[in-house]
């Protein structure tokens, strides 16, 4: 509803003394458009809940396929988020604060997975870390195989989810006035202390919301995972893959998994909004 009010104000500014009657059709049109769009987004999600009874939902949750997928998804998405945060924070801080040759190339490369289709990411990872891949063939020599294991699930998730954190982290770091860092240095803080005591705490809410978005992206990862890690229950079959698989037989299991993901998605949006709002 905010957007319609916003349009109202602009109309008033543009047309000055236009009558109330003159604006009515526009208001009506915008209200209808907005209602249609909201319906288009909410109706499919609501349908999930309408198509399954609570008993069937809880029965499905006990299904080993569902349970395995749930546990695997939560574990892998958590691990990949931790990896993304550990590697992404220093990278984002460096790119926000240091001017070095090739910084723009690094920025472009870190953003690449956002625009890359997941299927492309999957086959690319396979070509790199698969048994006969560019790196994989040497790993295979040591008896290490990555493709079609849980490790591959995590790699695929890190690959697709990392830009969400790194972009947000960089923007949060850039938003901090350097004066605080300069002041901290004159008070005796080494660059590491400045980062840990000043920069990261001040960027905290941005970092957390970036990590949550990255977690959500990892949780929903499908294309790259199925190509690079395969679809083995308990090892690489995460929730999206399990939805795809169970849909061909047990529809209620698929719907139950979908509902769990919907709930998590809502929690993610709510968490990000609460965190960013508290900050402003």
């Amino acid at each position, binding site marked *: 509803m905010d957007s319609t009010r916003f349009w109202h104000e602009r109309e008033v500014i543009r047309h000055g003394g236009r009558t109330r009657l003159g604006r009515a059709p526009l208001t009506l049109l915008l209200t209808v458009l907005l209602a249609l769009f909201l319906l288009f987004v909410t109706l499919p999600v609501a349908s999930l809940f309408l198509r399954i009874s609570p008993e069937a939902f809880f029965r499905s949750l006990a299904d080993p396929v569902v349970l395995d997928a749930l546990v695997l998804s939560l574990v892998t998405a958590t691990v990949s988020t931790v990896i993304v945060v550990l590697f992404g924070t220093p990278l984002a801080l460096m790119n926000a604060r240091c001017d070095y040759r090739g910084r723009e190339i690094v920025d472009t490369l870190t953003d690449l997975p956002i625009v890359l289709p997941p299927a492309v990411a999957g086959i690319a990872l396979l070509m790199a870390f698969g048994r006969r891949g560019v790196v994989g063939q040497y790993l295979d020599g040591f008896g290490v195989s990555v493709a079609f294991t849980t490790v591959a699930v995590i790699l695929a998730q890190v690959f697709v989810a990392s830009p969400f954190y790194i972009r947000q982290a960089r923007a949060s770091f850039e938003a901090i*006035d350097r*004066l*605080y860092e*300069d*002041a*901290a*240095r*004159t*008070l*005796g*803080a*080494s660059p590491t*202390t400045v980062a840990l*005591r*000043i920069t990261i*705490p*001040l960027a905290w809410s941005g970092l957390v919301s970036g990590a949550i978005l990255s977690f959500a992206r990892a949780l929903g990862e499908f294309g790259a995972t199925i190509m690079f890690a395969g679809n083995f229950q308990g090892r690489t079959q995460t929730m999206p893959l399990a939805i795809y698989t169970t849909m061909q037989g047990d529809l209620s299991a698929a719907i139950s998994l979908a509902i769990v993901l919907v709930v998590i998605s809502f929690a993610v949006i709510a968490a990000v909004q609460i965190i960013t709002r508290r900050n402003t």
Partner: protein
Amino acid sequence: MLSVHAVRQLRDFVLDITLSVRCGETLVLVGENGAGKSTVLNLISGILTPDRGEITLAGRTLFSDGSRIDVPAESRNIGHLFQSYALFPHMTVAGNVAFGLRCRKVSRPEIADAVAEQLAVMRLSDLADVNVGRLSGGQRQRVALARALVLEPELLLLDEPLAAVDMRAQAAMRRELRDRIRNAGIPCIVVTHNLRDALELADRLCLIENGRVAADGTPEEVLAMRENGFIASFAGPRVS
């Protein structure tokens, strides 16, 4: 004793400054906006690096391009107050004052004692646990000063120390500031746009124009240079 010779290419001109300040002496820098006054402070405290020159403080060389010395800002032990004070917004008053001591790995009880003592001197004890976002301009200024003085710096750099203080409180704050500087007994450089600051705080006054020292002397001497456009408007009708 501080002695500075620093050269640095700025966007519009080359900053080339030579000055010295004795212990217990306060040097006030005046000049147009963008003349390089704040840059001089940043070069001395180590936030910026000179292209050439030499900076020594109390017999220690902080910067020398000839002998390739550049002591990092965190090891210079210089109190630098920024115009906006730059208090850390995610910490309390006590947290801000304790910050430098924590960086120096001082033990917790010693930090608590030093902070409590400093807060008492600055009449900030009641505000110890208040977040700095809720302070007035004058209180912020005192916290910034406490945060610097608790470290017993060898030099004090103040950039527009009273600009964010309420007009009515400025006179009292100025007197207090002067006493603190005198008590500290260290060299002090103050950048200001305010004639009253210059008159009350300065032992010596220095006019900076386009990155160079255009005049250096007692406040009376410098303010008498009425042929200079900036001095004429700075000293204004007050002196005449």
